[in-house]
């Protein structure tokens, strides 16, 4: 039995490397967990593509004969729609209640017994999920769109890297927002109300239902600076379709990164508050 119970010999690798290994392993597990549900992936994908057609026709109709609306031409609108249909599943705007369910059932106790901070552990797993979504949920609509519509292909060299950073930031930021919405379960027990509020707000204010550039400029400024929502979808899409000059693209991504830092800090703060007052009942 000695080999089972022998006290752990501390590893000699530096802490940062060990931390990254842990993070990578949890990310990998997040990827595998989602890869398990293939039929669910296909069902989601079909829905995304069908709605892609609907949204694309509506926006092109809005552009009308003039061919431009709110600063987008027809190609930019098509790219906006088809990439957003994929990005929606990557940032996972809706449908994540894992933390709330675990708080409700008390399973969250098991998360607290791990040697990794809960926000870090959930974030790592969510990045794995997002990686899976890029391959399975984002690529197909992005490939289907150009078969039926004329799309805008980015022409500036900086757009690619900026888009990649912007998508990563959007994933982390959206995770943070979902974590906060779920964490209300620590106090409310039932998150349905908070979840509905989040679903409505995020759909409208992230630019999914219509590009936020349709709104008056003062309102755009309020939304971008005052809420994290435009940074979830609208920013990466605007960066990709090159609606604005490079300087504005960089500024939008910078704003997104700032929101990401703020929201992640809020997650850690909320988690600390919740743990101090946590009640795990029964058994």
């Amino acid at each position: 039995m000695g080999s089972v119970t022998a006290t752990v010999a501390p590893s000699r690798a530096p802490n940062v490397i060990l931390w990254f290994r842990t993070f990578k392993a949890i990310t990998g597990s997040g990827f595998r967990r989602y890869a398990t549900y293939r039929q669910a992936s296909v069902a989601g994908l079909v829905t995304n593509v069908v709605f892609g057609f609907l949204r694309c026709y509506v926006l092109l109709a809005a552009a009308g004969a003039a061919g431009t609306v709110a600063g987008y031409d027809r190609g930019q609108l098509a790219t906006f729609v088809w990439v957003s249909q994929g990005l929606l599943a990557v940032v996972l705007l809706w449908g994540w209640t894992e933390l709330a369910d675990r708080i409700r059932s008390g399973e969250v106790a098991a998360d607290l017994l791990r040697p990794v901070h809960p926000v870090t552990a959930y974030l790592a797993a969510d990045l794995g999920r997002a990686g899976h979504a890029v391959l399975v949920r984002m690529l197909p609509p992005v490939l289907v769109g150009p078969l039926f519509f004329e799309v805008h292909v980015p022409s500036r060299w900086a757009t690619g890297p900026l888009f990649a950073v912007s998508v990563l930031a959007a994933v982390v930021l959206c995770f943070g927002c979902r974590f906060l919405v779920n964490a209300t379960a620590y106090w409310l027990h039932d998150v349905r109300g908070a979840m509905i509020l989040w679903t409505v707000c995020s759909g409208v204010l992230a630019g999914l239902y219509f590009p936020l550039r349709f709104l008056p400029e003062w309102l755009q400024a309020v939304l971008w600076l005052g809420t994290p929502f435009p940074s979830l979808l609208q920013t990466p899409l605007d960066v990709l379709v090159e609606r604005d000059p490079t300087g504005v693209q960089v500024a939008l991504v910078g704003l997104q990164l700032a929101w990401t830092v703020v929201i992640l800090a809020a997650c850690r703060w909320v988690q600390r508050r919740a743990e101090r007052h946590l009640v795990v009942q029964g058994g």
Partner: protein
Amino acid sequence: MTDVIVAEGLRKEFTVRVRAGRLRREKRRVAAVDGVDLRVARGEMLGYIGPNGAGKSTTLKMLTGVLMPSAGEVRVCGLRPVAERTRLALRIGVVFGQRSQLWWDLPLRDSFALLRHVYRVPADAHAARLRRCRSLLDLDAFLDVPVRQLSLGQRMRGELTAALLHGPEVLFLDEPTIGLDVVSRQAVRGFLAELGRAGDTTLVLTTHDLADIERLCARLVVVDHGRVVHDGSIAELHRRYGSRRLLVADLETAPARPPALPGAPLERVEADGHRLVYALESAGVADVVAALAGLGALRDVSIVEPDIEDVVARLYRREDQGCSITSTAKVPGASAS
């Protein structure tokens, strides 16, 4: 010997909202744990028992850093469980019988591989421990099955392995045999007994199955209404609550009056006087049997060892009469208040 667990005046209060009228809710403070003192030495195997709602699980959650104590001092492995929770997590293993720590969607094999990175265990040490657990707990047949498809017994064996792969100094088990069939129960008990024999893991076990305790734990702590009501060996518990061995004699013919025997008071008469039950106090078995044989033909004689369940049931009832605090109703779930 050093104490790996030290708790002094440990206390946890919960707020319970009770309906008091059509709309009015009354807030009530209920102490789930009410001043528990506990010291556990390295390598000790401790049984922690008590009736439902006695505060066993709450104590365990405070010792593992999941819950913040309302008052009192706790140190586990020299660390403060809540403040230093992630550091403590590397040194303890926990199994909650009613909750899973494994990843629902992943096969056991993947969960174990992931735990190696989460707990930062060197590959060779991890492999050696996993090999040991696989043979002792018979894991091979279901290593590649997703956790959600495992039976309860299989899952529990997986949970035990998961809790041990990082070589914890203290293992906390909260009802690890709950709901298990006889075979799985024996497998788990056998495994824990072997762990105890090795002597370097401290084990704290809560259970309602007293056979677990009898098999595994030299020391027994009984809690009720959040307080420790007994701390000692099982033999001490029997002595303290006057449990005695019984001698049961079946006679061919019922005597008109059961004889009074010195040092062995008559407990009860059954089967129309054909069965006499004596408590063995100071009298020896031979004396009692000889005295009874004088009455006529003895059909059968048996000795009944004291039953721990009886003693504990008596203990719970006694505490119940002495106390008027009502225990809280349990609803599974977590919340912050």
